[in-house]
Structures are given as structure tokens and as C-alpha cells.
């Protein structure tokens, strides 16, 4: 399941909804990304996205994870709009019978999301606004899944 929303999410509630009444799961991994204030002067993070393509891309990424790992359930939630330091940005949840599958699928989802989902971050400080640059390390992280 995927969702793009302005509202915050609750990790515990999302995991509970995913695993409700199920006895076949065994392992649940969550990743949550939050707004980090690296320099101490961040006022807000603005998240822009490409409505329409974003949802399609997230569905594609989730489907690919489900094809690669034996997942019992998965969830991607990504927020858009203006976020304050410390606020949640993204949540990925993977549930599987086995912990290795849950861990790997969560890392895969994050790596692909970081390099393929059409979101852009703009950092707003007292001195103005700056679009965040893409990082080579994210491309390197994503590339490891195609080397196999």
C-alpha cells in the first residue's frame, strides 16, 4: 500500500493496522525519515512532488520489492508540503515471516524511493531557500540491487 499525504503518520498505528489479526508475519521492519537540521538554522523543509507520477512510481517500487522478497505486507507513506525540523517525512514498513527479507526489502524500498520517486526537497533558512542536491551515495546504494 502507498500513500502521499500532508498529514503526519503514527508508526505504531500503521504497523498495528498492517499486522492486525495475522499470525503469519514474524518480522516487521520500519524505516522513518525525519527532517534533520544539520546546520542549526533550518526553518522548514518544503517537499514538492509530481502528482500522478509519484503514486505510479511508488506502486512500481513496492511491486518490485514484493517480487524480490517474500513479503506478507508492505507500506510506503510519503509526506509533502512544509515540514518543521524533527517532523516525519517518510515511512516504509515491511512484514515477512523472516527478518532478513523484511530488512532487505525495507532498505531496497528506501534506496529506490530516494533515487526514483519524484520528490524534491527545499531547505528554508533565514537567509533564503535552497533546493537540496541529490547525493551520489544514494545512487550507489540503489545500484547494489541491480548488481546481483
Amino acid at each position, binding site marked *: 500500500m502507498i500513500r502521499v499525504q500532508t498529514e503526519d503518520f503514527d508508526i505504531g498505528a500503521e504497523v498495528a493496522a498492517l499486522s492486525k489479526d495475522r499470525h503469519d508475519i514474524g518480522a516487521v521492519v520500519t524505516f522513518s525519515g525525519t527532517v534533520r537540521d544539520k546546520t542549526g538554522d533550518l526553518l522548514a523543509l518544503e517537499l514538492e512532488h509530481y502528482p500522478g507520477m509519484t503514486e*505510479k512510481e511508488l506502486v512500481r517500487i513496492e511491486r518490485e520489492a514484493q517480487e524480490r522478497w517474500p513479503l506478507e505486507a508492505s507500506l510506503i507513506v510519503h509526506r509533502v508540503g512544509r515540514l518543521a525540523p524533527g517532523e516525519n517525512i517518510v515511512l516504509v514498513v515491511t512484514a515477512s515471516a523472516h527478518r532478513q527479507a523484511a530488512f532487505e526489502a525495507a532498505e531496497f524500498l528506501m534506496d529506490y524511493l530516494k533515487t526514483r520517486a519524484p520528490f*524534491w*526537497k527545499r531547505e528554508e533558512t533565514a537567509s533564503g531557500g535552497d533546493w537540496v542536491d541529490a547525493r551520489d551515495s544514494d545512487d550507489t546504494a540503489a545500484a547494489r540491487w541491480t548488481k546481483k
Partner: protein
Amino acid sequence: MKLLYFAWVKQKTGTAEEDVTLPPEVTDVTGLIDWLRRRDEGYEAAFEDLKVIRCAVDQEHADLNASIAGAQEVAFFPPVTGG
């Protein structure tokens, strides 16, 4: 054809979305970029460094040499930074 621009590409072109009618010789993304750059200095600046331009044709990631024949929607944006 509908064109969309995001993040700093949008800021430089000064446009979020527009409808264009292309001349018949513009058949791929590179041709479209060349055509856009000739419009004004905002577009020229937006497409100055193609290494940092990404593109989607009908909401799917596409290379800059991809065809746009029959496409409804082409979008230009910087490398993504979500997550």
C-alpha cells in the same frame, strides 16, 4: 502536448505547466529541449547543464534521447531528493 517543470527547473523556466504545439521535426526529448532553449533566457538557463536534468515521458522515467512521439505529457526536473 503538456509540459511540466518541477523544483529549480520550474523556478528557472518560470512555468509550472504549459501546453505546447511542437513543430513536426521535434520527435525526441533532446529535440524538445533544444526547441525550449530557443524560447527565452529562462529556458536557456534551466537546460544549461543537461547532466542535472531528468525527464519523464507520460509519467515514466525516460532518457534524454527517448522518443516523445504520441506522448501526452513530458516533465523536466532535477535528480529526485525525496525519502
